[in-house]
C-alpha cells in the first residue's frame, strides 16, 4: 500500500471508531494526531464527510487549537512553559538557552528532524518551575545544565 493509502486507512479506522460520539470532531482529531503525530491535510476531507461538515469547518477547528498541527513534528517535541510561574524562576533565560542550544525558535523543527520546540502556557508543574515536557514526560526545576544533560541522553538514544 502507498504511504498515503496507509494514512487514509488509519484515518478511516479512527473515524469509524469515534464518529458516533456526540461532539466527535475533537476526539477524532486527537486520534489522528496520536496515530500519525500530526493531522495531514489529506485526512480532512474524510473527516469532514464522516461528520457532515465542510472541509473549511474541520480546517477551522484544527487551526484554532494550538495543540493540533498540520505538519509533521520532529522525533521529539519539547514543550517549554512560558507562563508567569516559570518566568519567576528564570524561565526566560532557560528559553533563550534552549533556543540557542537547538538552533531553532518556537514552532520550528531542528534540521536533523530530531526536535520540535513549542511554547506551552502552563504544565501545572508550577511548584517546580521552570518546567518543560518532552514527549509525555514532564520535567521540573529545569536548569540550563539539566536540560543539556537531558538532550545529550536523548541524542545518544536517537
Amino acid at each position: 500500500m502507498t504511504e498515503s493509502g496507509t494514512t487514509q486507512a488509519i484515518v478511516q479506522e479512527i473515524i469509524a471508531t469515534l464518529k458516533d460520539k456526540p461532539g466527535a470532531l475533537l476526539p477524532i482529531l486527537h486520534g489522528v494526531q496520536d496515530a500519525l503525530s500530526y493531522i495531514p491535510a489529506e485526512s480532512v476531507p474524510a473527516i469532514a464527510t464522516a461528520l457532515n461538515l465542510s472541509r473549511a469547518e474541520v480546517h477551522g477547528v484544527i487551526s484554532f487549537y494550538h495543540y493540533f498541527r498540520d505538519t509533521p513534528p520532529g522525533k521529539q517535541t519539547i514543550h517549554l512553559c512560558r507562563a508567569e510561574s516559570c518566568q519567576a524562576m528564570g524561565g526566560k533565560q532557560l528559553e533563550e538557552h534552549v533556543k540557542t542550544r537547538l538552533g531553532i525558535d518556537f514552532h520550528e523543527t531542528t534540521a536533523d528532524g530530531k526536535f520540535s520546540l513549542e511554547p506551552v502556557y502552563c504544565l501545572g508543574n508550577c511548584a517546580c518551575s521552570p518546567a518543560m515536557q518532552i514527549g509525555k514526560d514532564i520535567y521540573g526545576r529545569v536548569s540550563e545544565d539539566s536540560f543539556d544533560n537531558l538532550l545529550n541522553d536523548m541524542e545518544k538514544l536517537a
Partner: protein
Amino acid sequence: MSITIYVPCDSSAVSLGADRVATAITNEAAKRGITIELIRNGSRGMYWLEPLVEVATANGRISYGPVQPADVSALFDADFTQGGTHPLYLGLTEEIAYFKKQQRLTFARIGITDPVSLTDYINNDGYRGLKNALNLTQEQIVQAVTDSGLRGRGGAAFPTGIKWKTVLNTASLQKYIICNADEGDSGTFSDRMVMEGDPFVLIEGMTIAGLAVDATQGYIYLRVEYPHAFEILNTAIASAYQAGYLGSNIQGSGKDFDLEVRLGAGAYVCGEETSLMESLEGKRGLVRFKPPLPAISGLFGQPTVVNNVISLASVPIILDKGGDYYRDFGMGRSRGTLPLQLAGNIKYPGLVESAFGLTLRELLYDFGGGSASGRPIRAVQVGGPLGAYLPEAQFDTPLDYEAFAANWTVLGHGGIVVFDDTVDMAEMARYSMEFCKIESCGKCTPCRIGSTRGVEVMDEIINGRNLDKNIPLLRDLCDTLLNGSLCALGGMTPYPVLSAINHFPEDFGIDAKATAA
C-alpha cells in the same frame, strides 16, 4: 510486619524523579531480599520535599525527602523501612508544620491513599456522600450544597447551589454535568492534584451532581497538558463502572450516570464555560453570548451544570458531613476551605488547603518561607494570568473573595505566583497583553484587536517613547477591554496590566504621581 512504602505518582513528583526513585527502591529491596509493598500515592503537596518517600510504621507514616535514586541504597543502610534515621529523615509526615497547620477537607485523602484503588477510597470515607445523597430528594441535595455556602472554585465564585437549582428547575429530557478541568492558570495545580491523587472524589462529586439535577451524562473536559491525570481518571472511571458506581442503576438505586473524559487541545480560552461547551461539541472554542445561561441552555442546547474540579470534589464531604459542617469553615461570604497553590519564586512551594481568612502574608512567609532566591518578594500575582499583581502594601489582605474584590484584585482559582525584586513589571504587563493576544478566541473586537494594540503600546513604553501619550493610551485601551469584552479573557487582562502600572510605576519609566488617573 510487612513493609509498605509510598512514592508519589503525582506528575510534579514524577517531574523530579519519583518514577526512578520507585524503581530504585524496588530493585534495592529485591537485591537485599526484603519484601516490600510499594504504593504510588498522590502528593502531600510539599513540593520542595518531593520526591517524598514515606514508610508506614506503628506510630504513623515517616517521611524522607527529597529522595533521589542515588540516596536509595543509603536509606536501606539506615534501615528506613523501619523508620531509621538518615539525613533525609523528616519524621512523622503529619507532624510537618506545613502540613499540620492546614485544614484539609477536599484534599483529605490526597497523598494518603492509592489514587486508583476503589477499596482504599471506600475505606477512607469515600462514597459516603453518595450513599447519603441516594436517600435524599433532589431538592434536599441541592439544599445541602446551598447551605454549605460553596462557591465556584474555578474563579468566578458563583454559588454552586444556585447553579444546580436552576438546572434542576429547567425541564429537559437530557441534562449534562460538565467538570471544567481545563486548569490553565499559571500557578495553579490543585485540580491536577485532585485528578491524579484522588480521582474518585471527583467522580463521586459528579455523580451526586447528576442525581441532584437529573443529569445522566457527565463530561470531564481535561486539558491535554495533563496526560497523567488523563490516564489516572480513565483507570478510576473504569473501576467505578465495574463496581456499579457509574453506569446504569448505580448501587441498585435505579439512577443512571455515565461519565467520560474529553481532552482539550491547548486553548486557554476553553476554560471559559461557553467556549468549553463549543469545544465539547466539536467546534472552535468561540465564546458564546450570555444569556442564555448554560444552566438553561448549555451543552447541545440542554441544561448543563458546569463546575470546576475543586467545586465538584468538595461535594462528597458536604453530603457526607452536612452543609453546616463545611459552612462552619471560612469567613464572611467565603465559606469552607480553599486549596491555595504557592508557586513561582517561593522557598516552600506547594498546596495549602485552609479555611478562608488566612492573610496573603501568612501564606507567603509562614507557609512559603519567603522567596526561593532569598531576595525580597516584590510582587505577587494571585488568581492566574488574569489576576492582579499585589505589592507588599497589600500582603495583609485576607484570602476572602470580597476582601480581594475590594482591592480590585481577584482570588480566582487560588493560584499564587511569587516574584522577587529582579522582576520587571513592565515586561510582565507586556506578557499579559501578549498572552491575551495568543489566546484570544477572536470573537469580540476589544480582546482580539485590543490585545495586539496592547503589546504594541507596551513595546513603545518599554522603549521609553512618548510616555506622556502612551501611558494614557494604555489606560484607555484597558478601559475598552475591561468594559467591552465578551468574556473574562479580554475583560480581565487589564487586571495584571493596570495593577502593574499602578503599583510599580517606576518600571514603566514614570513617577508615582503621574499615575494617579
